[in-house]
């Protein structure tokens, strides 16, 4: 940490590692807050092993547990993230580093809230004395925007570390957080009696989930457990975003596959609409280029409506048993 992020500070000979155990996430978050305040007042290096942070997400508190937070002698804080993917010759898989950076950015945001709160506590306290909540005299401790990523080195189990700048991820996450619809608002929009309790019958649950508006895109597949369900629904609706988030950009207001195709083939749409005009030119150029090729016969019985797996992903999968999986 000293070498990679703060070479000008005094080298750490020993560091405080406060005990953060407490009952429940709320208790632990409070302990963390106290420990952070104490560490700043204390000067020197402090390592918080698996602290607990609270962050307000869409109106309800979410508890986060970074691998570690280090308090520098100058009172600033750094998030430490430990990952299992290897750092090979000083570089690691960019996708995985990106994911780690996004994760760390959330911790940075949460820490910033804690820092701001500590500063206000300090002010309320007046008298310059240390408040019972560990206030820090109105000075907001800086949360560093370079986090420390710790990974196995090359092919070994030895640790190595690199500083990762998360400013961009932090800004993006902050924006997303403010834009998130408040959970309460979503709940208000649902019909009375909608219930997501896992002990409900499956059909009822599916119905409940269906009522929540969702905008599926293929990136959901890597991130969300509901993805296959949402994809089925999105495909059944013929939503163009099923084919990729970027697809929508070129299509103006056309939202479904059938709308796009009929506009492209001149069956619908306003020819003066630039999106429709571009589609028609694209369709004409494509047809011209393919004119020389033999037509592919469509598989027997295949039609778009067949892809409408509908709400019951499991049923669809079940219906497919008995057909060879790997064509």
């Amino acid at each position, binding site marked *: 940490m000293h070498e990679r992020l703060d070479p000008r500070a005094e080298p750490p000979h020993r560091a405080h590692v406060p005990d953060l155990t407490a009952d429940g996430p709320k208790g632990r978050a409070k302990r963390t807050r106290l420990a952070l305040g104490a560490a700043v007042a204390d000067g020197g290096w402090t390592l918080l092993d698996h602290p607990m942070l609270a962050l307000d997400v869409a109106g309800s508190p979410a508890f986060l547990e970074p691998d570690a937070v280090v308090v520098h002698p100058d009172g600033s804080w750094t998030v430490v993230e430990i990952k299992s993917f290897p750092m090979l010759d000083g570089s690691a898989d960019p996708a995985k580093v990106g994911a780690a950076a996004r994760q760390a950015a959330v911790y940075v945001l949460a820490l910033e809230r804690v820092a701001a709160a500590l500063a206000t506590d300090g002010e309320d306290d007046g008298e310059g004395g240390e408040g019972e909540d560990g206030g820090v005299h109105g000075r907001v401790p800086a949360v560093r925007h370079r986090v420390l990523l710790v990974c196995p080195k090359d092919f070994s189990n030895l640790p190595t570390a690199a500083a990762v700048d998360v400013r961009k991820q932090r800004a993006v996450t902050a924006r997303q957080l403010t834009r998130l619809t408040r959970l309460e608002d979503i709940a208000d929009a649902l019909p009375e009696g909608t219930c997501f309790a896992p002990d409900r019958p499956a059909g009822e649950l599916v119905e409940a989930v269906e009522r929540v508006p969702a905008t599926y895109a293929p990136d959901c597949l890597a991130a969300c457990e509901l993805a296959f369900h949402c994809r089925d629904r999105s495909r059944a609706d013929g939503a163009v975003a099923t084919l990729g988030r970027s697809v929508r950009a070129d299509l103006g207001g056309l939202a479904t596959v059938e709308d796009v195709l009929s506009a492209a083939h001149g069956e619908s749409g306003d020819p003066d609409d630039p999106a429709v005009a571009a589609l028609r030119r694209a369709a004409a150029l494509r047809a011209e280029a393919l004119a020389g090729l033999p037509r592919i016969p469509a598989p027997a019985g295949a039609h778009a409506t*067949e892809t409408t797996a509908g709400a019951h992903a499991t049923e669809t999968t079940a219906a497919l048993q008995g057909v060879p999986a790997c064509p």
Partner: protein
Amino acid sequence: MSLIATLGRMEAVRAGQAQPAATVCHRRLSARPLVFVPLTTAGEAGAPLGALVGTDPDAPRLLVVAQPRDRDLRFAFLAELADVVLPYIDGFAADVEAAERTETDPETGKRIKVEAELCADAPQLIVPSRAGIDFVRLLGRSMRFRRTAEQDPETPYPAPPRVPLLGRWLTHFGERARVPGSSLLLALTDVLGLHWTTGQSSLEDQHLGALLAWIAPPDGLSGARAALRAELARGADDQLLCPPAGPATDPAFDNRLLAPAIERYDRARTALAAAEDGLEADDRLGDLTNAEKAVRDLVESRTLPTWQAVWRGLDLLRELPEGAHVADRWTRDRWSFTAHRDRVAAGEPPQPRRDDAVTAANKLASREREQARLDAQEALDDPLVMAGRRLAGEAFAGEVVDVVMAYSESKRPSPRPLITVRTADRPHLGERAKVYRSLDGRPQTAEFVGTQDAGDDAVLVLRIVDKMGRGKEPEAGSVPERGDRLCFTLFEHDQRGGAKLPDPEHTPWTHGGPPGEEAAVAETADPVTEEDVL
């Protein structure tokens, strides 16, 4: 994604089957490729679990690491892999043809032609997916700095003799795969995705089974349903019917089948080691053999479907005729292969961990050049790709409606005919912009003179400026005639070399200065620790 590709995806949704994204094959498909289907161990980043490898679709060689944490077993796996891959590569090294290469004369600094050897063909490695290419690079990196007992008798864990060499070759294949349009190492999902658009997103196209399901759905099934089945369907044992193409495996397989089998193998090994007499040892050896066979069977069951899928994919691709410029790019691959063969033969050290500034800049510049070359060649070879460039205003096709002879105003007038082309395309032409058409495979240049208004279509006047011979009158066939249908591009057909970079010895200080003495020292081997994964 271009609008044409987007439309292709939607047509695929409607038709229930993938649609063509190309009318020719844009990559060289070797008559005898080496297919490599590796698996890795979950949780031990990069530790190989096994692989199927070989050139005969009916006779893959199965390699298995029964306990991936065991260094000796891993080394045995790598040695076996070397026994398959290196003879395959060597098989292409000896068959050479004479060729010419341009080099800079060290004394005069002029570009001169020198006689050189060029391998008549090159080896080709096929892996199922992009992650497979990354794994080839990882294997290459882990092996090329290893020391064998012969190189260094003191080395704590000597690698089997041919393993470092395999590492250098895999590194070369992995690096070459970064060059746009190269075919030395291909990921099948990428190549299939280049030639077909499916009714799913490009993200989902990374799943080889789903991609093939869209391209060639089994009888009576739509692509969408077949793909869904390939992705999700599980058998009675809760295992995926179509295992992932790897190298990563399905967690349900890891936990329910693989982990117990490896545990059983470990127990059998411990028991054998503890055997007290020959009779007992014989017995326990039998147990160990059975336990090992169980792991082998498991690995085979997860790789064989992918192995077959890869060959099926290759068969589908082979039905497409090869693009006209593919042979040209393959020649570059052959040069690259020949050059690496020579470096190995000359006893040069393995590729460094990190390139020096000049090498890195050179690589980057050549990749940019190759990308531009590839973009141009694919468009020229394939009307469907050209359609995308026409839609983007980077090319136009039309009919010649008028030809007027004209001459340049110099002492020896040369032909400068004016042609008028009517097109429905909307090229982005600036004043005196240069445009190119292919004349018997060579680019002929014309200059944009002006446009006439003609309602919906554009009528463009162009002046042809070259490739008409040396005489006052143009050579026969070198000037378009009225009624010809032509396609002009705004991009050049050939890529010239970019700005010349200094030799490594003259690296400017802004880029770290000349490599100096540290670079002369051979790279050291990686330190070995007890818990290495590769």
